[in-house]
């Protein structure tokens, strides 16, 4: 009889307690909450912090416009640096400002339809967009791992899901409405201000505030979701065939276990089958417990993981795609993700797993491996060719400097482009070599924001301004 991941882990925890007695206390020991910045600063300004807690600022002014006119008026007079913010899910310092923080929460909802293309207010959270599109029988072609982000933030950072034939979210955008720092409203698309459009589709919130997006949608099809564990070596060997076969396919290399967690989605007309309760958080807790208990010995940790997890039962669910493609992530973390040429993706992944298992016994988060189709946005990491993404995570209470010192050099050596919203140290001249239209983007940026009012110190460094 096979058991679910939840059953296996609960039984495993019991076995662990019986076997090592006080080991349970070690396994479940939690680090203290990291120290937090004060709720207000000396000027009385309220703290803003990103989702993981690694970025923060005390904006002098917070704007929450509800109309295009309010956005335009606000931008004309706003204290610089002016930074738009959605859900605050970026790990890089894109949003922090001690000037003006512009929330897009009031610019939300579906504005209208042009055929099967939806015109969507840019502050709409992806989690709310799914049911709103479904009410019209439509859906986004793909969704990221989480759906908490605002649409504008997801587009600004080239946020993506997985699927060899499916583009990142911005790949389905056909037109944008941008309010410049001077309050000018620009409608751009492939046949209208095309340069601004290609620059703006992925633009880090640096050209102004995007308030409206026209985007392609697909039929709201039912998907079959399958989740299973298998040896990491098998996942490596079968990855290309699975990317070719499945609508969506990704896998997580689980360090110190010899295992991979694989997830596929395919269209189906079969009846709905409930997704069931979240298993990932329990899985993560178990991995953390094994790290705490057996982190001193990689072989012991791997043996324990294979015993506890090796025979777990696959999971299956069938439902509309917007209900399945994203997952709740209640455990906060910091993350680095690079997008690599597909030919070296798996080799790089194997190298990363090996170096983590050799040098970082504190790591327990699974490493995510995805595939994304190409597009033509100037600052898209998928510009010009398909890319294979690898994402390495660290629990929000854990030290994450190793991402820069140990992991980023591997990504760079394999020709990776950084995810704009995730941790990286790549800047100006290095980016120019990665992006053929880098300087064209900088020209559009200078044209739309000659005084650099949208640039905080991080963006000035990134753009070499």
């Amino acid at each position, binding site marked *: 009889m096979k058991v679910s991941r939840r059953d296996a882990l609960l039984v495993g925890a019991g076995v662990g307690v019986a076997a090592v007695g006080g080991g349970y206390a070690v396994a479940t020991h939690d680090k203290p909450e990291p120290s*937090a910045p004060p*709720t207000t600063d000396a000027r009385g300004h309220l703290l803003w912090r990103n989702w993981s807690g690694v970025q923060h600022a005390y904006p002098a002014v917070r704007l929450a416009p509800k109309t295009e006119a309010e956005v335009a008026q606000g931008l004309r007079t706003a204290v610089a640096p002016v930074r738009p913010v959605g859900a605050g899910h970026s790990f890089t310092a894109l949003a922090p400002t001690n000037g003006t923080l512009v929330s897009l929460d009031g610019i939300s909802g579906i504005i209208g339809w042009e055929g099967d293309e939806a015109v969507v207010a840019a502050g709409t959270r992806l989690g709310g967009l799914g049911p709103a599109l479904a009410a019209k029988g439509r859906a986004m072609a793909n969704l990221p791992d989480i759906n908490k982000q605002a649409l504008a933030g997801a587009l600004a950072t080239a946020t993506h899901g997985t699927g060899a034939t499916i583009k990142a979210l911005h790949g389905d955008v056909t037109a944008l409405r941008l309010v410049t720092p001077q309050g000018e409203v620009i409608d751009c698309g492939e046949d209208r201000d095309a340069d601004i459009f290609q620059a703006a589709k992925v633009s880090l919130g640096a050209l102004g505030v995007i308030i409206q997006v026209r985007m392609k949608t697909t039929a709201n099809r039912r998907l079959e979701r399958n989740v299973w564990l298998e040896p990491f070596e098998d996942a490596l060997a079968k990855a290309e065939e699975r990317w070719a076969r499945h609508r969506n396919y990704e896998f997580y290399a689980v360090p110190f276990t010899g295992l991979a967690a694989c997830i596929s989605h395919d269209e189906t007309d079969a009846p709905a089958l409930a997704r069931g309760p979240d298993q990932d958080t329990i899985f993560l807790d178990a991995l953390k417990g094994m790290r705490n208990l057996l982190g001193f010995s990689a072989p012991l940790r791997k043996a324990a993981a294979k015993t506890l997890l090796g025979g777990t039962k696959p999971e299956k669910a069938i439902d509309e795609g917007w209900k399945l493609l994203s997952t709740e992530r*209640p455990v906060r973390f910091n993350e680095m993700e690079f997008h690599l040429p597909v030919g070296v993706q798996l080799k790089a992944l194997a190298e990363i797993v090996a170096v983590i298992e050799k040098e970082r016994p504190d790591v327990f988060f699974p490493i995510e491996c995805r595939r994304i189709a190409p597009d033509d946005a100037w600052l898209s990491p998928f510009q010009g060719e398909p890319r294979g993404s690898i994402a390495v995570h660290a629990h929000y209470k854990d030290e994450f400097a190793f991402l820069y010192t140990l992991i980023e050099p591997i990504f760079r050596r394999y020709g990776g482009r950084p995810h704009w919203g995730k941790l990286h140290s790549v800047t100006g001249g290095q980016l120019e070599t990665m992006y053929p239209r880098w300087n064209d983007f900088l020209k559009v940026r200078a044209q739309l924001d000659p005084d650099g009012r949208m640039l905080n110190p991080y963006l000035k460094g990134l753009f070499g301004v």
Partner: protein
Amino acid sequence: MRFLGVLAVALGLAACSRPVPPAPTAEQALALAPADARLATLYADSCKACHAIPGTGAPLVHDRKAWDPRWKQGEAVLLDHTVQGFQAMPAGGQCVACTPSDFNALIRFMAGREDSAG
């Protein structure tokens, strides 16, 4: 002294006699919203994504059993945890437009303590 003991027991029983309302069902939780229109919008845009869905790890809206231990820490502590982020709770509940008084009102609403507004 015996009388005082009986009185204390009686008061204790009286205090305990106010039943804690049962936790809402998943459907009821999804339907709950603050009466104030501005708060309802802020709640729908931010808090609801986690606090109205069982299993996200966040205490469910109006689930007094989950909220009461938190409420005992005091509103100032809850406000700090909300603004700074705490454990699974992201800073500000991902509500950039919320003011401290908005946060306090939203916490009271979710904790089932709207009668404590002041």
